[in-house]
């Protein structure tokens, strides 16, 4: 197996040297690097290097998102698989093109973006739209800034906000009734809940909020609350990967244990969210839903564990991370409660991404004030 791959890679290298497809060398390098670790050794002190590398780090984020992705497939049909696949094909394709143009190596960062983005989409989104979204997100969220490591915004959220603004009807009215039994593993797609259902509030059975739009839009429109138990397990309507709280927690915990995500961000985000939601619910229960319901519904957990923890677009200082999380929590509560949107996680995180560098600069200038006299 190993020898075979090695041989075919070497064959490709030889062939590529002569062919007009030479600019695609980064693709081959990436394949080579995927299967075989580099041979490079340290040049100066320290002579040792840690075993970790970005490949493993990013693949582990994909692993962490796997439970949520599987839940999306189970609850909303294996059409979700196509959504994810298209995201990967378009996203990685763009990455290859840019690597070829810039004559750089392909960065593994796109692997993460391409799994996180589809998980934030409504299940019944037209497939072409997925491609457009990830294309715009990777292009304007990342590549124009110089690729992985240089972006200001979380590229997965840039993709989503692009679709959200361009196709608001699709992004807010394409929900599917979650499936049961064998569910999506054998069924292509679920029953569509049309946009009209949402607006005209024809909640068929009173009290059975699950049958209508997403729990949050439901609350916004009717004040109806989905049962917490369903929210926890995930059999409610919503975006592909955001419905099951337990599976998101599982993935998030994995990220924290492996030290890929800093625990400070989810903790401060969710903590401040709970506190502010509690306060505002006390002030105005009409507009602000109860804490438990808000905590488990919508994209809060997914955003706190997978989106806000993106190290590139968030602050890197410890103090900055606390501050970032706290303000994100506050903004989410406010946007959900006061604005015209039912959901506020994406806006909160993108908004705070703008200030990441500023927050870091403030923290650092305080920490190193002794050096500035």
């Amino acid at each position, binding site marked *: 197996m*190993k020898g075979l*791959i090695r041989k075919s890679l070497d064959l490709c290298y030889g062939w590529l040297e002569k062919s007009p497809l030479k600019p695609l060398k980064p693709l081959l390098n990436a394949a080579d*690097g995927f*299967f*075989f*670790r*580099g*041979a*490079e*050794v*340290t*040049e*100066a*002190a*320290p*002579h*040792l*290097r*840690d*075993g*970790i*590398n*970005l*490949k*493993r*780090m990013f*693949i*582990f984020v994909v692993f962490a998102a796997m439970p949520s992705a599987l839940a999306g497939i189970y609850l909303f049909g294996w059409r979700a698989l196509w959504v994810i696949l298209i995201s990967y094909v378009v996203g990685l394709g763009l990455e290859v093109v840019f690597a070829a143009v810039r004559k750089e*190596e392909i*960065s*593994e*960062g796109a692997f993460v973006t391409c799994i996180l983005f589809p998980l934030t989409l409504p299940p019944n989104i037209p497939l072409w739209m997925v491609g457009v979204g990830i294309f715009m997100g990777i292009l304007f969220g990342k590549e124009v800034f110089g*690729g*992985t*490591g*240089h972006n200001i915004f979380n590229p997965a959220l840039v993709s989503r906000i692009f679709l959200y603004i361009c196709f608001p009807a699709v992004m807010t009215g394409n929900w599917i009734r979650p499936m049961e039994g064998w569910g999506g593993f054998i069924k292509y797609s679920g029953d569509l809940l049309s946009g009209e259902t949402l607006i005209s509030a024809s909640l068929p059975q009173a009290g059975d909020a699950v049958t209508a739009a997403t729990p949050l839009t439901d609350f916004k429109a009717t004040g109806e609350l989905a049962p917490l138990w369903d929210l926890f397990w995930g059999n409610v309507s919503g975006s592909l990967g955001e419905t099951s709280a337990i599976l998101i927690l599982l993935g998030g915990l994995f990220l924290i*244990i*492996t*030290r*890929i995500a*800093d625990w400070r961000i989810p903790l401060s985000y969710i903590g401040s969210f709970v506190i502010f939601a509690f306060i505002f619910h006390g002030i105005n229960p009409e507009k602000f839903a109860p804490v438990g319901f808000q905590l488990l519904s919508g994209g809060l957990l997914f955003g706190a564990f997978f989106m806000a923890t993106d*190290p*590139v677009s*968030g602050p*890197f*200082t410890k103090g900055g991370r606390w501050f970032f999380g706290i303000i994100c929590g506050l903004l989410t509560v406010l946007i959900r409660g006061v604005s015209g949107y039912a959901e506020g996680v994406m806006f909160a995180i993108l908004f705070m991404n703008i200030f990441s560098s500023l927050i870091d600069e403030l923290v*650092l*200038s305080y*920490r*190193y004030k*002794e*050096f*500035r006299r």
Partner: protein
Amino acid sequence: MFSASKSMVKRGYNFGNLQGANFSGTVETLPLPDKVIIPLKQGFSAETQCLVKKGDKVRRGQIIGRDDHTYSSPVHASINGVVEHFETFMEGHEPHFGVVIRREHGDERGFAPIPGAGSPDKTREDISEILYLAGVTALGSTGIPSFHHTSDIDLKDVKALVVNGLSAEPFSLPRELLLSGKIKEFTTGLHLLMKLFDLSENIHVALNKEATVVKELGNALKKNITLHTFENRYPLDMDEVVTEITTGKKVPDGGTPSEVGVVVVGIEEILHVYDAVVLGKPLIDKIISLGGPGFKNNKLLIVAVGTPIEWAILGNIEEGMEERILVGGAMRGKPVEIAAHPVERHFSSLTILEENREREFLYFLKPGFSVLSYSREFLSAFFKKTVRKAQTNIQGESRPCIFCSYCEDICPRRLVPHVYSKMVAFGLAEEAIKYGMEACIECGLCSFACPSKIPLLENIMKGKKELEKRGRWSHPIGLQKLEVEGKL
């Protein structure tokens, strides 16, 4: 000055159970080599005047290089033999001169004793003279002060003495092992140094918490000596850091402990003090540790000073591998370019690592019981006892920084290496000063932990050099400082 001493103790990194770092307490003696090369400049010492000519017969322990007018300590012949020739070799960019002595007789261990030595009851002046004649004063990062010119600190300025018994750097000399069965020699040596420095307080001994001799040593030490125990975390064993965590005095950024009146000596150096004063033995034999996975047997070895390194490691290297020989530990060790380079008197360890150029299949998916990692992404993080393998392979691909902040988390000084690295790359080294770049002690943990494989330490050092070029007041240390001050 940046005060980080309180948190310093808890910072740093424990490398855990490394392959090639298990030394037994027994010490072997290496047979004397056929010839030795004695550099005329060894340790904290300027080059000494050569006192022998080609063809001269020399005795083991005889002084062959001495210069009372510069900051230096005498050097000795370490075998009985004949001066064969003189050799010039390069150390870095500086030429050094060495006396090559061919052995005449067998494995003779007798030596010419230091005049006046032989008992622990000596006056301050006597101790100073004996240590100088024995060459012991050249030990330590900035020498041991005496009435001669041997250190960048004057005897009267010594405010505190710190004995460094820590060895957290991978494959550095396991100092606590030297103490087993030698407690009495150690305390005697320590008291001799206290007498020399005229200190009755502010004496600190730092030792690994898990060392077996902690209790025994604690009982043996007098009340005026403070015994500190620390976890085995790198870089607590660096001289600057050990000064800070024991005395509470912050060493100026980029400076040496001597600037705050502290002399730091290792346990092995205290034992050499004992040997010199009580036994009259000059510094001609040195205990070095052979560490690292490249050795067949990891052991402590008594080596005659001047023995070629290749002689000391002969027959002990793992076969069939490309090796990297280092003087010192695996973090800050200096690569040996010529295997014939002599073991100098300030060497304390030799490390051999494998140049691992193997292209491992699907490396990023391996469970990693034996992977050394700061992150918790390998199973080794959850099985603390497993043996980790130290590698020279960078184990990944160079990538742009993703702000994971591992370098910041692992930095013992709470600095932000990735920020400096970027600033230096953009030519903004001055800007990096404002973020504390000059407080970096160059331990190398940032480069070690970086998942993007950025050579952070190299970039920081590049930035410091850049600053020097642009006329920023540089901070010379050791002999360099004496030279700048015009004393040498």
